[in-house]
């Protein structure tokens, strides 16, 4: 077939051999057309409908996998009609695709940390790899691991069985090992770009942005008003929860990358936005929220009334804070807990928490509440300060309005309402108001603010009203939140700023992920394994000092805990063609929500291959390759229509068929319906790397691909006919290859 065919694809004049499909013609010329059911190794099939293209003068869309290029064709691979057709096809596929692309823990993490990944790596004893994975999202994992209120654990499905995995504890575990080691992990840095970024604020948001921007090769300067970097991690979290030396070490690692740090520099006083804008290519505002919110009650200005974060900061700075023996802390959040437990440690004899709802509604971590109780803190639930009583301008007590719970409010929590005429008075020496924190807008004169007086920043691009000025963290939009939120914004902003510095305008959108709806009922057959308790100081040992309460896991404990992971996320996440293509189109499968297949019981597995037909999109690649390439037909299509299923005959398990574990089906599967075990004990979704090589085990010199993670070969993938039919058998082959390499 020497004949050449001339056609135009996307405006590009192309010449291909006669008989070439449009799909191949496009591919040969660097034009990407998505497909999920086509592979050169098998005959064309045409199931997925993604490879459709529009031909000028042709009424119907064509499947480019089967349509041969013809002389004079004018093809458009991404017209609006084509995009719409692909979008609906993907939405339909996803609407019947039952699985979790990512584990709920990871999806719940505001920084998108691959929790399942590092937990799994720890389970396998791969601490270094775990740390590297964490550091892809969190530059200060030892700090964050200690203080994070871990939304991941709230989402953890182990919680539906008994208790969630101690994900935060495991993060701190991996990070501590790294901090203690001689060779701390330093990621690969890209070459210097010559671009300069100034950051105001050295808290979790600013430090994270600095870290990732520096890794991109930019020149980064952080300016901070406090004597040391760390922001609220250092000045808002008491020593007994997060020792300063941990923050120091992690800040130092960032500094070692070449991030220049300038302390005791106050915005609006020592420096100005204009100045910092002028001498940089981009400016990041990560100034935090450093003002305590007032309560607006009478007597608030009395001597002995302190703001929660002000109190904590002064304690860290070593400033003398007069709190006396009887202290009331108003508020139910983590700052309130930090304040009351700090007060205990400063020697207060009676410490009260004043909270207008009940324990169930308290936003503070349960463990914090529990430990505060252990340390003798008295909780006055359903009370609200009515007046701070004072004598000679100095606090002497508090008058509390008694409350009861009414109808649920917008947040779903029951709203506290006053019980008319019922009050209570307590004698006090000081009052700490830990009811919230606000931005100090000093020096932000030209920056556009929200109605709540926070910096207005675009949620996807982090841009402010000023060109080249970005804003992140507690100072922006909705105001103060948890540290990991700031870390997440810092990381995403770094991507946006890097793009900006390269002249690209991007919006960072949350990708689409398929998620299962799992309940306790779904998991009722899971074996119950109690959460590994982290060793820590008893109440008596800890309440008169600032020694870190939590001692951290031993290796043995950490691995045991990590092994409890239910492995919710799809192992094929990093390879999933379906997910990758789906996110090229702006899909919303929920509008077609309906019945999904629910056949998978986890039982149809052999020693290598795990089939989860609930994720199957019926592209037929496995069935066709098993028949057409391997001539085995271990699996086939069963039934028809929506009920079509891929299965061995009589629904036998794979190892009762002629399957030889060649793994071709797994390799071709465009999603996670077919996976194969790697050499690790605990199976983890890993972003493997590949290298093609020749097998030296016998003289046949078969072509194989090695999949490795870190420096470990974790899979050996046959690549030609002989290796797929290796006389050793797959298991032995892998063993032998790993021995050789």
């Amino acid at each position, binding site marked *: 077939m020497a004949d050449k065919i001339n056609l135009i694809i996307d405006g590009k004049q192309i010449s291909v051999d006669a008989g070439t499909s449009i799909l191949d013609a496009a591919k040969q010329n660097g034009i990407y057309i998505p497909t999920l059911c086509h592979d050169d190794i098998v005959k064309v099939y045409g199931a997925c409908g993604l490879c459709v293209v529009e031909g000028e003068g042709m009424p119907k869309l064509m499947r480019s996998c089967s349509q041969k290029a013809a002389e004079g064709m004018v093809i458009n691979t991404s017209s609006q009609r084509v995009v719409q057709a692909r979008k609906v096809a993907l939405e339909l596929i996803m609407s019947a695709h039952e699985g979790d692309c990512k584990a709920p823990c990871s999806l719940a993490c505001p920084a998108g940390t691959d929790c399942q990944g590092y937990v799994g790596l720890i389970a396998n004893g791969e601490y270094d790899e775990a740390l590297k994975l964490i550091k892809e999202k969190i530059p200060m994992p030892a700090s964050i691991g200690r203080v994070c209120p871990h939304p991941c654990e709230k989402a953890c499905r182990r919680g539906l069985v008994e208790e969630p995995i101690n994900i935060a504890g495991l993060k701190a575990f991996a990070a501590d090992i790294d901090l203690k080691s001689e060779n701390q992990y330093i990621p690969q840095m890209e070459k210097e770009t010559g671009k300069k970024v100034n950051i105001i604020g050295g808290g979790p948001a600013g430090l994270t942005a600095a870290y990732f921007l520096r890794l991109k090769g930019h020149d980064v300067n952080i300016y901070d008003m406090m004597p040391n970097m760390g922001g609220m991690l250092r000045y808002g979290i008491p020593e007994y929860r997060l020792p300063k030396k941990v923050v120091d070490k992690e800040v130092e690692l960032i500094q070692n990358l070449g991030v220049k740090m300038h302390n005791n520099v106050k915005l609006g006083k020592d420096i100005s936005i204009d100045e910092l804008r002028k001498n940089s290519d981009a400016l990041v505002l990560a100034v935090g929220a450093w003002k305590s919110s007032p309560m607006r009650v009478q007597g608030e200005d009395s001597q002995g009334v302190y703001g929660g974060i002000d109190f904590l900061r002064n304690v860290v700075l070593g400033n003398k804070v007069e709190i006396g023996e009887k202290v009331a802390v108003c508020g139910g959040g983590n700052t309130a807990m930090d304040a009351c437990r700090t007060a205990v440690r400063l020697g207060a004899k009676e410490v009260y928490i004043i909270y207008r709802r009940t324990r169930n509604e308290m936003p503070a971590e349960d463990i914090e509440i529990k430990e505060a109780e252990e340390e003798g803190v008295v909780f006055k639930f359903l009370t609200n300060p009515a007046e701070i009583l004072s004598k000679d301008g100095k606090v002497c007590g508090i008058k509390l309005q008694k409350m009861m719970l009414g109808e649920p409010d917008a947040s779903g929590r029951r709203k506290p309402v006053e019980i008319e005429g019922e009050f209570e008075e307590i004698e006090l020496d000081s009052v700490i108001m830990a009811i919230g924190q606000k931005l100090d807008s000093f020096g932000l004169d030209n920056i556009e603010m929200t109605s709540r007086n926070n910096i207005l920043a675009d949620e996807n691009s982090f841009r402010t009203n000023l060109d080249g000025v970005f804003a992140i963290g507690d100072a922006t939009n909705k105001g103060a939140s948890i540290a990991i939120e700031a870390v997440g914004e810092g990381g995403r902003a770094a991507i946006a700023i890097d793009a900006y510095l390269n002249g690209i305008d991007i919006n960072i959108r949350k990708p689409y992920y398929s998620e299962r709806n799992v309940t306790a009922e779904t998991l009722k057959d899971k074996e119950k394994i109690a959460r590994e308790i982290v060793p820590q100081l008893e109440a008596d040992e800890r309440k008169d000092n600032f020694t870190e309460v939590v001692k951290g896991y031993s290796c043995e404990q950490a691995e045991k805990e990590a092994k409890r992971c239910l492995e919710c996320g799809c192992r094929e996440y990093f390879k999933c063609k379906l997910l990758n293509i789906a996110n090229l189109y702006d899909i919303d499968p929920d509008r077609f929500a309906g019945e999904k297949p629910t056949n998978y019981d986890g039982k149809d597995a052999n020693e290598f291959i795990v089939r989860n037909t609930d994720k199957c999109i019926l592209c037929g690649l496995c069935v066709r390759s098993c*028949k057409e390439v391997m001539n*085995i*037909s*271990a*699996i*086939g*299509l*069963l*039934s*028809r229509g929506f009920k079509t299923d891929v*299965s*061995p*005959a*009589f629904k036998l398990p794979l190892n009762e*068929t*002629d399957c030889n574990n060649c793994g071709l089906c797994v390799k071709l599967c465009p999603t996670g319906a077919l996976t194969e075990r790697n050499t690790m004990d605990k199976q983890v979704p890993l972003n493997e790397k590949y290298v093609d090589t020749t097998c030296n085990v016998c003289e046949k010199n078969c072509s194989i691909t090695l999949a490795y993670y870190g420096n470990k070969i974790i899979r050996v993938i046959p690549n030609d006919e002989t290796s797929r039919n290796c006389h050793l058998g797959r298991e032995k082959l892998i063993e032998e290859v790993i021995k050789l390499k």
Partner: protein
Amino acid sequence: MSSKNGIDLSLIQDMVEEYKDIKGSLITILQKTQEVYDYLPEEAIKYISEKTSIPCSEIMGVATFYTQFRFQPVGKYMVMLCQGTACHVNGSKKIMKTINEYLGISDGETTEDGLFSLKCVACLGCCSLSPVMMINDKTYGSLTPEKTREILRQLKEEN
């Protein structure tokens, strides 16, 4: 040649020999096998696979694709209720309900006494007599709930 489940494979031996080398005969072989056993026993499928060299997974793929094939023995009376358009318009849903209630079985099920099986089938082509059902090759048309009950009652009584 009787297998462990009491399936006498010799009953299909000659037929399979006759068709096994004629390409494209799988559906014919399955139809003739079902004529013998009234359904497709697993043993028979394995036997056909062995003789024709068509893998079991492919045979099952074909057999489960077509509604004609069954994998369980059926009742003495196979009630096939027509699901054609004319029958639908003329009230086949009511007949369906009547059968469900009278025999206590739904589509695809068999009564405990093994007497009746019910199957909803594609148009039987007797649209002018709709709604229609077929019981063991005999067609009953212009059904009403009463008429349906009467037909079933008579068949019950015969046994």
